[in-house]
């Protein structure tokens, strides 16, 4: 964190240079340091512990312990009453469970759909409304659903997407009868319809994030490019897009992680059905554990999901935590 200039770190840096080990050094504008040094009159290094203890207690008991208990429980056959150790059986069963396969496929569809719709659409809307007359108002309208809970959004889209809902009514009224579908009752259009519903909610925040990135592009770069005759597509491709790289990493990372964690929308609109066809890993875990009481098997699915989430958030975490020194190295 802020240990860059403590004496110990400084000497080790000198030593390292003596051995000619190339080290990367950040160049801070002002050197951060810990104001309170260990050994001051206010007590030793443990004086700080009481301050962190409540957080540690809450997180430790209600999040960290359950995490390890889940990992441990995934090696047991457990129906909620009796459990027996079965090793990695739960994991080998995953491989030839057709429901898990479908669930994994749906999860991939969610990730791909999220990249294609909320992220790409968010970028386009942000660019199209940047520095325009009614851009602010347009962005406000598009971010409005973000202030509504996913559950309420799902209820609204249930009303839109049921077989005699607003979408089909609209399609029939404009003469596209053949396009009207039982959106939520058949795979794959139920998963696609769910992704569209979540796009309506999730795009706004990406627009806001991209808009922040756009505003941060230095004016002189844009002006220099204009002097060189760039405009339209070339400006977008060679100036805007590269300048947005940092924001894009975060937006993509958050969007992917959120799509992996998506639960409310699917649970309310289809309950993962019909016949479990629209389940993603998040839903499959819930159903196996709390509806079918395959607790061990559910834990195995939860662990698979967790590994996928952590791996895919790695890229944006690296970006997000530049100063902890831990994620970077």
């Amino acid at each position, binding site marked *: *964190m*802020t240990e860059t200039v403590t004496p110990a770190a400084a000497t080790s840096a000198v030593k390292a240079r003596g051995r000619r080990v190339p080290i990367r050094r950040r160049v801070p504008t002002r050197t*951060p340091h810990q*104001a*309170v*040094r*260990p050994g*001051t009159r*206010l007590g030793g290094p443990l*004086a*700080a512990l009481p*301050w962190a203890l409540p*957080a*540690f207690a*809450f*997180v430790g008991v*209600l999040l960290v312990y*359950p995490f390890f*208990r*889940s990992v441990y429980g995934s090696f047991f056959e457990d129906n909620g009453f009796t459990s027996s150790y079965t090793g990695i059986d739960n994991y080998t069963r995953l491989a030839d469970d057709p429901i898990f396969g479908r669930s994994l496929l749906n999860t991939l569809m969610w990730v791909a759909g999220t990249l294609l719709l909320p992220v790409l659409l968010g970028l*386009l*809307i942000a660019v*199209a409304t940047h520095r*325009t007359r*009614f*851009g602010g108002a*347009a962005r406000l*309208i*598009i971010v*409005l659903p*973000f202030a*509504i*809970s*996913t*559950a*309420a959004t799902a*209820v*609204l889209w249930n*009303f839109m997407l049921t077989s005699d809902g607003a979408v089909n*009514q609209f399609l029939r009224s404009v003469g596209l009868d053949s396009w009207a579908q039982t959106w939520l009752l058949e795979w794959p259009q139920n998963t696609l319809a769910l992704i569209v519903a979540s796009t*309506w909610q999730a795009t706004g925040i990406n627009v*806001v994030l991209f808009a*922040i990135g756009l505003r941060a592009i230095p004016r002189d770069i844009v002006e220099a490019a204009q002097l060189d005759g760039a405009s*339209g597509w070339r400006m977008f491709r060679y100036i805007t897009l590269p300048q947005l790289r940092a924001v894009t990493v975060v937006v993509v990372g*958050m969007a992917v992680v959120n799509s992996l964690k998506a639960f409310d929308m699917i649970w*309310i609109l289809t309950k993962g059905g019909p016949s479990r066809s629209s389940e993603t*890993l998040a839903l499959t875990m*819930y159903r196996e*554990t*709390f509806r079918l009481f395959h607790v061990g098997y559910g*834990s195995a*699915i*939860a*662990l698979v*999901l*967790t590994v996928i*989430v952590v791996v895919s*958030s790695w890229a944006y975490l690296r970006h*997000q935590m530049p100063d902890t020194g*831990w994620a970077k190295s």
Partner: protein
Amino acid sequence: MGRVVRDLFVAGCVALWLIPLYLLIVNALTPATAYEGRPDWTFQGFDFVDNARTAWTEAGIGDSFQASLLYSVVCGLLAVLVAAMAAFAVVVLPIPRPAFWFWLIYSGTLFPLQIFLAPLFGLYADANLYDTRLGLMLVYVAWAIPFAFFLIRNQMTTMPPELTEAALIDGASFGRIFWRVHVPLMRAGLGAAFIFQFTAVWNDLLLGITLSRSADVQPVMAALTTLNNAYSSAGPPVILAGALIVSAPTLLLFLVFRGLFLRGITASAR
């Protein structure tokens, strides 16, 4: 040419975003008895109060609304306080291995809730916390701490350490430094963290349906889900009125404190 395409694209998007909102309002206003089994595209009446009353009392949104308000306010405040203390310990005080503490607490936001659910359920069943308000509040605090901690810690690192040094020279204790220097200077950041966690707790569904069952304990999103399951019998006007009711607090927060509301999420992008 390019400009026309751009404006048409924006106008199309705005229309696509407004139509569901418009339908939500129109149909939540339709009198429940006048609803004919298909969505209305024009105003049929202004019976929102009746629909809302039906959702509030008969569908049990009211009880859950009060419970959720309690959870969100109390857990949001508590989580922000606990997280601010932890951030203070990690950033300002000489705690050994600050990076370890940071990751220990922050890891709570990385993992999907699913990995905690089954053991939490077992833990709650053993401790008689299942289906109690206290139980839900405890887990909401724990769940809200990691991200609040992340936000507050990031802001605290931008505060010059000379402030703390000056206060130490003046003879202030850690508690005094925390309450008199850091908390007042970080009001906006703490507010943003509170709004973020209030919204997160208010919008939670998964923990609610896993750890509670009875109407006066269940959070409001769980009640809305139950109401939605009775789609054909309750009728869309009542259900949509319920959706509007449960959206009101966060929508209000958003419209009043737009900057702070978005700050929680945009802070993680910088």
